[in-house]
């Protein structure tokens, strides 16, 4: 067995070296390689020349990511605990949660810059981006408990709180760590994105921004790879305890009952309806309240009423609706495609970790680099490979979508009890059979959690692609509106995209309820 493992590891090492060699060759000899895919040696040389700058910029990014990560995950864990204990609260806050996550960076970024100084805009952006994935993962872990354990707690007079404290909290650790694994690279991404926009002097994001016009691809790749390395480190740190946690947390024997999913046992339909209404109203209420608190000029920050009026009243309303509708018609199909493709990629990678673990391990860094490579640096490369059409946009969406989905899926796959796997083994079943017949059905909870998590994200990915690549759709509309200081349009666009994200989230939830009944 160990022999086999070393052999496959050796094969992977060889593969990696071969890959680097081919890259070096193409990067040195071909014209497009020199221009867009600089050879590793050139990247390293450039890195060495810029080492002092990396120190300055890198340190700033690391600091920002860590603080953003800490804030985002702390709030996420706290919120997940509250939501688990009070399922009604989760329902009521669902709108806010998704809105926070689905708010296009193009809207959030400028606002943060307006209100915060120093490193705070990018720190808060990182925290905002981290919050939802970390919260979702933790909440999933807290909710999916072995029903047998619930019986034990109940018979000793335990209540929701004791159950939470003694069973759920510990049982959620693997998922929590999965959440942290998702969050760590996203925090880095958020920090870099924030630095890119906020005009701060230090940070890899501003380094990237100032290097972009320099026509030095080796430098761009260096910055991208360096931030990927930071992200990968963050991911790795939280991967370390994962295997042990999974083995001590998954049940020894197979429970006859499936974990009870969605603990939303609302007493009456009426309360449920009230909570749904709250979920709908709360974001708008917070929006108005925030505006009232900040006394923002309505030119920059229109309130909910003004935004709705913009869409439905006055002479420009029809034109505004038409503009948004036209943009959506371009954006939505691609977002849907991106979502499906992203989930598929995530699934394949997670499946590989069951079918060919060594290969999956070897591919992960590449996937991570793709996810963390600042998209702006990838643009020329993407254009080269995919052009500027649908394929390119879908590709960008996939890059944004697949990673959180992968981590969630992988986590679910790791939690399958040993007994279930044994059953397949004794009948000589291949790993593929195990995947199809045991692993996947067992982790439907994680499967849907992954889909729910990334449903809003796909839209964000496409918005980004439209802004950087294709110049069509909602992403472009938002960008152009920004140039015209047309914040009515921007907020209307954001509102619409958030509503769509909520709809996508709920659609996945509905699908889950049908499938898992």
């Amino acid at each position, binding site marked *: 067995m160990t022999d086999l493992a070393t052999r496959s590891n050796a094969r992977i090492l060889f593969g990696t070296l071969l890959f680097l060699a081919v890259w070096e060759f193409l990067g040195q000899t071909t014209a497009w390689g020199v221009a867009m895919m600089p050879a590793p040696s050139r990247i390293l040389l450039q890195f060495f020349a810029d080492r002092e700058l990396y120190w300055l910029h890198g340190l700033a990014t690391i600091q920002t990511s860590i603080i953003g990560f800490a804030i985002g995950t702390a709030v996420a864990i706290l919120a997940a605990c509250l939501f688990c204990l009070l399922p009604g609260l989760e329902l009521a806050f669902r709108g806010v949660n998704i809105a926070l996550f689905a708010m296009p960076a193009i809207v959030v970024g400028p606002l943060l810059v307006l209100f915060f100084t120093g490193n705070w805009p990018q720190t808060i952006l990182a925290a905002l981006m981290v919050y939802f994935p970390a919260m979702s993962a933790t909440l999933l872990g807290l909710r999916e408990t072995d029903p047998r354990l619930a019986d034990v707690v109940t018979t000793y*007079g335990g209540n929701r709180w004791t159950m939470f404290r003694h069973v759920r909290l510990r049982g959620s650790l693997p998922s929590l760590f999965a959440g942290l694994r998702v969050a760590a690279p996203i925090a880095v991404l958020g920090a870099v994105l924030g630095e890119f926009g906020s005009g701060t002097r230090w940070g890899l994001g501003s380094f990237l921004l100032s290097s972009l016009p320099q026509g030095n691809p080796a430098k761009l790749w260096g910055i991208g790879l360096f931030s990927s390395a930071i992200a990968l480190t963050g991911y790795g740190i939280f991967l370390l305890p994962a295997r042990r946690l999974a083995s001590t947390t998954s049940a020894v024997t197979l429970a006859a009952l499936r974990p009870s999913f969605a603990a939303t046992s609302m007493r009456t339909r009426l309360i449920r309806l009230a909570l749904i209404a709250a979920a709908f109203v709360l974001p708008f209420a917070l929006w108005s309240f925030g505006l009232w608190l900040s006394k923002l000029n309505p030119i920059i920050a229109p309130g909910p009423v003004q935004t709705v009026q913009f869409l439905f009243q006055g002479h420009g309303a029809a034109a505004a609706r038409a503009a948004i509708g036209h943009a959506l018609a371009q954006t939505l199909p691609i977002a849907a495609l991106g979502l499906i493709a992203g989930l598929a990629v995530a699934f394949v990678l997670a499946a590989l970790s069951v079918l060919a673990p060594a290969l999956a391990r070897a591919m992960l860094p590449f996937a991570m680099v793709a996810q963390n490579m600042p998209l702006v640096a990838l643009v020329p490369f993407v254009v080269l490979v995919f052009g500027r059409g649908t394929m390119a946009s879908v590709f960008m969406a996939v890059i944004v979508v697949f990673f959180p989905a992968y981590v969630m899926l992988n986590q679910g796959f790791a939690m399958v009890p040993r007994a279930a796997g044994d059953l397949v083994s004794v009948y000589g079943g291949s790993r593929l059979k195990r995947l199809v017949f045991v692993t996947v059905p067992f982790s439907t909870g994680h499967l849907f959690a992954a889909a729910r998590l990334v449903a809003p994200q796909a839209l964000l990915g496409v918005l980004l692609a439209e802004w950087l690549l294709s110049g069509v759709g909602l992403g472009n509309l938002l960008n152009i509106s920004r140039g015209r200081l047309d914040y009515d349009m921007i907020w209307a666009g954001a509102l619409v995209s958030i509503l769509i994200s909520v709809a996508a989230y709920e659609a996945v939830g509905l699908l889950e309820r049908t499938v898992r009944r």
Partner: protein
Amino acid sequence: MNALPARDYPALEPVDSRETRPQPPVDLIIDQAGKTFETARGPMVALAPISLKVAKGSFVALIGPSGCGKSTLLRMAAGLEQPDNGAVLIRGKHPEQFRREGELGIAFQDAALLPWRSVFRNIAFPLQILGRSVKAHTDKIHELIELVGLKGHEDSLPGQLSGGMRQRVAIARSLVSDPSVLLLDEPFGALDQILRRTMNVELQRIWAARQTTTILVTHGIDEAVFLADEVVVMQAKPGRIAEIIKIPFARPRTPELFSHPHFHALCDRLMASLHGEGHTE
């Protein structure tokens, strides 16, 4: 008599017929309680409405074919299943109320251990839920570990134990809170005969010392006869009580009893009842 008032401590009405003893109070009353599960293929009657009274401090064995509703009955007594109709009262209280007092001990048919807790900490679990100090009970827990023969395995995780060992952890766990009502669902099913006998004797000792009202679900007829004051024989389709047989042997009972001819006679009698040949009272 469909809904007994919760606080009304019932008058004495011995199910036990040894007239010489003073009639003890009733600890568990099941009054016309039945249970039907809704399934995708329509309702499934697990238990027809049944009635049962268990006297305080008595030992009742439940015996019956697989699927006749023994576990369901036990879960109903523990308040884990709500009867469709009728009432279940322990010490005059609803099970939900009673179990909060920490007087209930339970071992499920499936060991149901927390996979991340060591043997010691699994056994200590009920104490923590009941808000009692684990520290103060350390000795007691170690005693229980020794009792179930798991000395040296205190720090093992459930994944590192054999099936029988896991079951023994569950037995120890059911005893750790010093319950005055003990519900055991086939606790010895995965134990070898020698260990089973030892555990039987130990269980009798604990029961006698603490006057624990005990309901034991078992498939071991000999075990039932050895331990119980009364054996409740159940039948399936629908789950119901077929017969209640009193076991007259004096206490404490010693392993010699197993080879006593009266013992065998009673076992045979029980076997017949299980086969459905007993008279239905």
